[in-house]
C-alpha cells in the first residue's frame, strides 16, 4: 500500500480539493483507495456526501478502536472514506502523551494494507503533532502552494523541517493559480520558482473547483472537460509515476 499525505502549513490552499480529486482519479484508474479525512472541518467528508462523526478520537489514536467498521464507501467504485471526526481537534493532546506518535500512526494504518493500494491523508493545516505523525507514516507529502511569496516561504519552512526529520519526500505543486494576477504569472513563470517544485502540474483558480461544494463531487464528475479537471488529471499522472518508482510503505 502506498501512503500519501496532502499537507500544507497554510489553510485554504486547495488541499481538500486535491485530496478528493486525486482519490477519485486513483480509484478510476483501478486502485483501491482509502481517503482519511483528518481535518475536523470535514470538507472531504462533505464533498463525498458522508456524515462526519463526532467523538472517539482518543480510543482511535490509542489503537483501541477497530477502524474498519468506520469506513464508508463513496459514490465511486473503489474509493472509500474514513470520515472526519470533530473530536480530532484534540488529537494533538492525545498524541503528545505517546512516546512515538509516528510509530503509533504506522501501526494504526497497518490493517488497511490488505484492502487498499493507496491511502491518502487529507491533513488539517499547520504543523501539529497529528500532522507530523501522519507525515512520519507517509512516503510522500503533496503540498499545494499558492504562487505568492508567503506561500513559498511556508513551503521552504516545511521542506527544511521535513528534511531534518528524515520525513517523507516533499512534492509541492502550484495550486489556485490565477493567470490574471501578475504575481502568479511571474512566480509560476520564472525558472527559479519552477526549479523549486518537483511536480509540474498547476491547479488553476477555477470556479469549477469551488462548485465541488455545490455538487458535492469531484470535478471530473460534473465538469470533466474543464481546465481544473485536466490539471488534476495531469497531477494524478505525475503522482502515479511517482508511486510506480517508489516501494509501497507497508
Amino acid at each position: 500500500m502506498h501512503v500519501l499525505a496532502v499537507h500544507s502549513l497554510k489553510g485554504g490552499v486547495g488541499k481538500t480539493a486535491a485530496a478528493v480529486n486525486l482519490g477519485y482519479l486513483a480509484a478510476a484508474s483501478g486502485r483501491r483507495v482509502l481517503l482519511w479525512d483528518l481535518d475536523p472541518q470535514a470538507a472531504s467528508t462533505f464533498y463525498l456526501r458522508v456524515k462526519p462523526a463526532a467523538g472517539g478520537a482518543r480510543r482511535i489514536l490509542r489503537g483501541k478502536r477497530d477502524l474498519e467498521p468506520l469506513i464508508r464507501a463513496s459514490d465511486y467504485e473503489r474509493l472509500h472514506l474514513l470520515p472526519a471526526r470533530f473530536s480530532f481537534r484534540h488529537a494533538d493532546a492525545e498524541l503528545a502523551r505517546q512516546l512515538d506518535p509516528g510509530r503509533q500512526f504506522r501501526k494504526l494504518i497497518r490493517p488497511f494494507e490488505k484492502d487498499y493500494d493507496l491511502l491518502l491523508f487529507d491533513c488539517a493545516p499547520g504543523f501539529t503533532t497529528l500532522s507530523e505523525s501522519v507525515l512520519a507514516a507517509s512516503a510522500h507529502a503533496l503540498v499545494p502552494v499558492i504562487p505568492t511569496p508567503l506561500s513559498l516561504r511556508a513551503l521552504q519552512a516545511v521542506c527544511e523541517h521535513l528534511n531534518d526529520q528524515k520525513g517523507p519526500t516533499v512534492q509541492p505543486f502550484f495550486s489556485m493559480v490565477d493567470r490574471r494576477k501578475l504575481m502568479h504569472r511571474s512566480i509560476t513563470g520564472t525558472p527559479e520558482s519552477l526549479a523549486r517544485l518537483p511536480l509540474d502540474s498547476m491547479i488553476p483558480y477555477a470556479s469549477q473547483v469551488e462548485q465541488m461544494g455545490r455538487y458535492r463531487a469531484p470535478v471530473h464528475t460534473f465538469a470533466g472537460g474543464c481546465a481544473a479537471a485536466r490539471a488534476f488529471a495531469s497531477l494524478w499522472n505525475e503522482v502515479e509515476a511517482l508511486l510506480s518508482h517508489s516501494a509501497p510503505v507497508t
Partner: protein
Amino acid sequence: MPEFAHQTLALPLGEAIDGGALVQAAGFGYVADMPEALMTAYLDTFDGRVFRSGQVLIFHEKPRARILEWGLLAGSKGTRAAVAHIPRWSCDLPRGAGTLRDAIGVRVLTPVVTVHGQRRVFRIIDGLEKTVARVSTISGRIRHAEGEAEMPQLVRVEPLKGFEWAGVSIEEAITAALPNAQKVPNEFEALARVAKIDPRGYEAKLALPLEPSVPAGAAAAMLFRAAYETMVATLPGTRAGIDSEFLHDFRVAVRRSRSWLSRLKQVLDVDLLEHMKQELHWLGGVTGPVRDLDVSILLLDAYRKELPERDAGALAVLEDHILFARRRAQRRLDQALDTERFAKLIRRWPSWLTNMERASMPAAREPVIDVARGVIAKQSKRVCRQGRVIDANTPAEALHALRIECKKLRYLLEAFGPLFDEAGMATLIRGLKRLQDNLGAFQDCEVQSTALREYAHEIGAKRADTIDAQLAMGRLVERLDSRQAAEREQFVKTWSRFDNKPNQAFMKTAFGYAAKRR
C-alpha cells in the same frame, strides 16, 4: 477490498428488464450512470484449477481501467486490483492472490468465457443523495473458443461498505420483483453452462466409473477413450507451445496408451494392437525432444540458485541455447502434428474403440476384474523381481528399466483402481509414487547431466567466448552427479516403503499376487 460480495440474478434467456424501472418499482430513488461498454473475461487454466479450488478470477476491461477481481466463492468477499494487462501466469497476479497462485501452479491462464456487452449502473440514493447501493444490469453476448452464445441478462445488487442495511433491503425487494430470475452464486459457472462449456475444464487424472462385471474389451475401450479425449483436449495447447503442461499431459496420455497396449494385449485384436503400437511409438518419439527441452528450461532457475552469482550469470548463454533449440524442436513437432499420419491416427481412433468393444477374443468378454487382477499381478511381479536385485553396484540402466516398469504398474493401478479396495489401493499407490519420484530424480540427474555435456559441446562448437558458461555447466554436472549418488542411497528406503508387508498383503488379497521373499 472490503467490498461486499454482490448478489447476482439471471433472467431467463431472451428476457430483459429495464433496471431503472425495476429499482423504482422496488420503491428506491436512484441515479442512472451513463451506460458503459463492458468486456469481462472469466479466466481459468485449461484444467479448471481456479474453479475446482472454489475460486473465481475475472478480468474487466473498462474505458479507463483494467481491473482484476478474484476471491473465494464460499461466502467470502472479492478482491479487486488494477492491472496493466490480462494475466497469463500465476506470477502475473497481484500481491495478495497467494491462494489463487497456489491453485494455478505452472498452468497458463486463458479466458474461458468472455462477455462483450453493456453495463448500466443505477445508484440507489438516500435522502442526502448519497449512493448507498448499486444495482447494475449486464447484457451482451458470450464469446468462447468454440464461438458465441446468447447470454441471460444479469442483475447485480452491490451493497456498499458502511451502508449494508440498504443493500439487504434492495436485494430483498429486487428478488421479490423478479420471481422468474435465478440466483447465481457463481457467474462464471452459469455463463459457462449457457455456452455449453464444462467449467471444470478437462481432467488429466483418470477417474473412470469401472464396474467389476464390465467385459474387459469394453473397459479397454473406456480407457483408450479417456486417453484420446486428453490428447484431443491438449492438442491446441501442445501446438501453441505456451504452457509445457499441455505437452506433458499429451505425452502422459500417449504413454498410458502404450503401456495399456503392452499389458492388455490379450483383449485386443492382433492387427489393431500392432498398428496402434507402431503409431504411438512414433508419436512418443516426435514429442520427446520438446519435452526434454521443457524440463531443461524448468530446471534453469534451480541451476541458477545452486551456483555462485558469477557462474549463474554465465548460464544466460545456456538459456539462449536451450530456448533456440526449443523453438526448433517445436517447429519439428508442429510439422509432425500436421502430417497425414497424425491426422489419420486421430481420425481413426474412435473406430478403434468400437473395434475394442466388439473384440472377439475370449479375454475381451471376461469380466474386467479378472483381467485386471491378472495383469496387475504380473506387472507387480515384474517390478518386485527387478527392484529386489538392485544394490549399490547395479548399473544405472537397471534403475531406469525399473522406473519404466513402475510407470506401467502405476498406469494399471490408476486405470483399474475403482475395482479394488480404496484404502489399500491408496497406500500402494502412495508407496509406488514415492518410489517413482526417487527413481525419476535419479534418472533426471542422468538425463540432465548428459544433456548439459551435449549443450556444452554444441555451445563450444558455435561460439568461442563461452568458456565461463562451459565452466558453469561443468560445475552443474558435478552437482548432478553427487545428487544422483544421493538418490541412489535413498532408493533402499523408498523401496522398503513400497515392498513392505501391508502392501504385499494387499497385493495378495486384491490381485492374488504372492511375492516370494528373498
